[in-house]
């Protein structure tokens, strides 16, 4: 070995390993934990929010895996925070889309009468955006500009 460089194969394995961790994080937060809270509330009101099919879940998981692996592989470059920000935004948009923006409505027929119920759960979406998505966008850029730019 003439240099101390890490072999490409090891770097790829490291990037994919980090990508798997990133994928688990995004899937757990945006596609599992928060939808579970929404669906618990929704199923008492109506038939609930539409659930992701296995194929959709696998597709999103693969997408997150790709983005997170690419971000890990490009660590130290500006593409790393950009890809991490994109992952967070993408996760948030999936959540908003499948949760119908937090708007939930249902109708029940009882003894010949029709009872309609609608509730707006969007305040929970605002909390997700403020405390999970926004930090997930800002912190990677903060890390990049304070720790990973040579000479800073």
């Amino acid at each position, binding site marked *: 070995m003439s240099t101390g460089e890490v072999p490409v194969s090891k770097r790829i394995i490291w990037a994919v390993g980090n990508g798997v961790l990133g994928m688990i*994080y995004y899937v757990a*937060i945006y596609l599992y*934990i*928060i939808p579970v*809270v929404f669906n*618990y*509330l929704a199923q*008492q009101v109506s038939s609930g929010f539409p659930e992701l099919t296995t194929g959709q879940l696998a597709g999103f998981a693969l997408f997150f895996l790709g983005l997170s692996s690419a971000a890990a592989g490009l660590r130290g470059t500006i593409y790393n925070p950009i890809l991490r920000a994109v992952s967070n935004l993408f996760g948030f948009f999936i959540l908003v889309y499948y949760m119908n923006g937090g708007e939930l409505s249902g109708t029940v*027929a009882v003894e*010949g*009468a*029709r*009872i*309609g*119920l*609608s*509730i*707006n*759960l969007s*305040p*929970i979406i605002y*909390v*997700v955006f*403020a*405390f*999970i998505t926004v*930090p*997930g966008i800002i*912190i990677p850029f903060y*890390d990049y500009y304070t720790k990973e730019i040579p000479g800073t």
Partner: protein
Amino acid sequence: MNIIHATIVLAGLVLIALAASPLVVLVEEALNNPDILTVNVEPLNGSIAITLSYNGSVKLRDVNLTVSLETPSGLVNKSASTRELSRGGNLTIVIGGDGFGGLGNVRLAELKLEGKVSGIYPFEISYRPGGGG
């Protein structure tokens, strides 16, 4: 993910749980007590008194109750509102007087309740007898 990021995300998840807790409590109470929200219609000296009673522990804010009645002289709407409705609270609408046409000629078209659960989550409940298309 560094420590700061993990802490903020955890704080966010705790906040989500806290934000959802009034709704969870309300849902649990509604499932265990079907009479959490009741509406009584009573004749009152030639008028009708429609009283909404609430028995939940979660406060409802900016509550507005609207009644639409079909009378011989057309659709009559009347509403009552209150800033806050808590356990044991009532909201009453008395309908009568001019254009009412007597109790026998009145039919309920719609009863609508609007408000905010804990002042955060806007909701609307409507009741239409006979399927009310």
